[in-house]
């Protein structure tokens, strides 16, 4: 079925960046329709009130769609553990709320070293900063201004920081002992009520969503306001193909998962926000006349330069209560002592150290993050009593190099519930990043011992890394030879097809991407509002230099 109505903008994907695009466009009366293959999360589905909340982390609330196997998910084959949610709110439903901004150097890694496929972002921190501020005010961020490791942010609104608990204070003491940087974290966790959402009550189960709406997932941070503005959100709408005619996107064809019927939506501008795997998958599935290799992929770059962040977990135990079951999972503090490239470390880039909470008693018995499982039998009680709530999780996320062969492709041998091809991922941790991660583990253990940890256990370099952050597969850049879009999110080959999610990241920094994904969405919406007449008349995507700009 094809509707006669033509929308101003079609947004594909209702996650953090898609929600931001929809809300900000609709503020100014732009007629927006959004297609989302998942549905709303029903309040009864959150596990927080269930006695069985911990086992449900590995079932209904598993991070990996290949484990969860819900009908709205699509399979991802290959060497990967990719974490995502297909629902209104997208993968932010599952996030911890960490909300660090990228730093100035994160936008200039091509200039700094240019290793592997590293390029500069075509925008600077200063260009994105105003959109960070807008995004922060919309989402609701707790934090403490004044971190000297960042440029000043006088216009960034903040609520009071989340409570660190014994866990946060213990890690801070270790960093203090070593004289290393730390600062209370920015988190998309509200500590005061906002827009009908309840303030966080420190329950500690953020990674399974938030029934209070305290966690700033897109379903509560962006969507109520977008819907109030009149955005038409179609759920269970699985996009099969973005349609193009005469070099311009005309809309998309989707499958209604409730009926199996196909529909076509027409729009003057299409914005793709499907995450670092979903976005390239859809572009590759959209191969059609004139675009044999997929949309905007004549240079073969769609799906390439996948980044996850290099990663390691270090579990630490103490002979005193740490009470890690208390407090928002969003990190109470972070350490960026080793964030920028060091001159004598033998690798480029750096990492952030963060702490995580410890969930409940079954988490202790089942081995926490690094797999140190309680023994069965006679030794069980002693082990449990010694480890429960005396645990501190410290983890590092390092900046991984964008490598062309780390890529998303299609796997037609496996299909989703609508018969569409699975995504296939190949990812190998680069040698540089293995060194970085090993260095990071050593520093974390150093911090843990400085504060008196009596036992540690770590995962070493995780390969593949946990795919919390799916970045870089449709990156923005300087020209059609190095990227998929220009600096205004326009794909090089289809000027009115824009990409505004984490896949557009040129590099991934060494920190959580949701804050930047949201800011990119805001920026994209503002550009469309200001320059729609240009975008709609361009026969070719302009270079960054020739584009009309803001």
């Amino acid at each position: 079925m094809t509707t006669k109505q033509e929308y101003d903008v079609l947004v594909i994907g209702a996650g953090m960046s898609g929600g931001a695009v929809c809300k900000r466009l609709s503020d100014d009366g732009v007629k927006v329709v959004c297609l989302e293959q998942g549905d709303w999360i029903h309040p009864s589905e959150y596990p927080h009130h269930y006695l069985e909340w911990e086992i449900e982390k590995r079932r209904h609330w598993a991070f990996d769609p290949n484990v969860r196997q819900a009908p709205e998910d699509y399979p991802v084959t290959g060497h990967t553990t990719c974490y995502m949610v297909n629902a209104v709110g997208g993968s932010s439903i599952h996030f911890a709320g960490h909300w660090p901004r990228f730093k100035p150097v994160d936008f200039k890694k091509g200039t700094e070293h240019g290793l592997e496929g590293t390029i500069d972002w075509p925008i600077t921190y200063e260009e994105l900063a105003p959109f960070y501020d807008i995004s922060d005010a919309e989402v609701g961020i707790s934090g403490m201004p004044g971190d000297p490791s960042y440029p000043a942010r006088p216009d960034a609104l903040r609520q009071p920081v989340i409570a660190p608990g014994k866990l946060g204070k213990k890690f801070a003491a270790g960093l203090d002992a070593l004289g290393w940087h730390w600062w209370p974290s920015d988190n998309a966790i509200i500590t005061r009520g906002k827009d009908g959402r309840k303030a966080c009550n420190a329950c500690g189960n953020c990674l399974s969503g938030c029934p209070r709406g305290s966690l700033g997932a897109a379903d509560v941070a962006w969507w109520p306001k977008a819907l109030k503005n009149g955005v038409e959100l179609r759920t269970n709408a699985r996009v099969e193909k973005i349609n193009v005619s005469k070099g311009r996107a005309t809309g998309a064809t989707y499958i209604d998962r409730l009926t199996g019927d196909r529909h076509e939506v027409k729009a003057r501008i299409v914005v793709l926000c499907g995450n670092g795997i979903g976005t390239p998958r859809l572009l590759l599935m959209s191969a059609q006349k004139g675009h044999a290799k997929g949309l905007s992929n004549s240079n073969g770059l769609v799906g390439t330069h996948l980044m996850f962040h290099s990663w390691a977990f270090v579990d630490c135990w103490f002979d005193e209560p740490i009470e890690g079951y208390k407090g928002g999972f969003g990190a109470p503090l972070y350490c960026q002592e080793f964030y920028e490239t060091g001159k004598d470390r033998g690798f480029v880039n750096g990492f952030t150290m963060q702490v995580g909470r410890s969930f409940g008693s079954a988490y202790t018995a089942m081995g926490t993050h690094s797999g140190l499982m309680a023994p069965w039998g006679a030794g069980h009680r002693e082990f449990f009593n010694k480890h429960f709530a005396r645990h501190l999780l410290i983890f590092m996320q390092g900046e991984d190099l964008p490598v062309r062969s780390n890529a998303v492709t299609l796997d037609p041998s496996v299909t989703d519930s609508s018969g569409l091809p699975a995504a296939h991922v190949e990812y190998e941790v680069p040698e540089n990043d293995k060194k970085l991660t090993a260095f990071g583990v050593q520093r974390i253990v150093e911090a843990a011992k400085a504060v008196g940890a009596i036992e540690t256990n770590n995962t070493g370099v995780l390969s593949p890394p946990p795919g919390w952050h799916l970045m870089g597969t449709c990156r923005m850049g300087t020209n059609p030879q190095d990227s998929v879009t220009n600096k205004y999110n326009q794909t090089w080959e289809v000027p009115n097809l824009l990409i505004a999610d984490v896949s557009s990241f040129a590099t991934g920094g060494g920190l959580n991407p949701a804050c930047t994904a949201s800011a990119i969405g805001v920026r994209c919406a503002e550009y469309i509002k200001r320059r729609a007449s240009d975008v709609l008349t361009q026969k070719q995507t302009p270079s960054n230099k020739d584009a009309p700009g803001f």
Partner: protein
Amino acid sequence: MANVQTDAREELLAQRAQMGGVDPPITFSKQQQAILNAAADEVIPPGGGFPAPSAVDVVEFITRYVAPNGQTPRHFPCAEEGAFKAGVDRLGNAFVQAGSQRRIEILERASKEDATFFTQLRDLVYYGYYSRPAVTQAIRDNLEAGRDYHGPPQPLGYLSVTERWNESEIPKGRGSYTKTKEIKRIPVEKL
């Protein structure tokens, strides 16, 4: 039946892992229940103020997390009714009759020779036992670090018992960053 209102969403929801486990749960025979209780009490022995798994009906939990016959065991712990019951039956009535030392020997052998079943059993006992309110109460009563622990995170949360930062703890002045205009090429070859 005519005129029955249906909702396609219901069919999609039914394909997901169900919160709280399968409904209706599977059932075990009395002998299988006895075997499971005996095994669970060896996996997590009671003592130190903590109840036995059999005393908190871990078996009831297991009935909800084993996929019934006819359903593909797609979700953790990926236990299928027929195969899981066969594993229980392999332990046999002799297991119930045996003393604790003999039971441990049998379970140790199962952990090697019947590893899939044993792992499923152990994991279900762990998750089931620690989900029980009586066990949460035992944690509160017996462990200093667990005095505030209340099991399911909501509705109570822990805000009133979670320490906050003191202003004096914040390390002002520590940390720096490179400004955009100061970013330059590093000698990669010298790293």
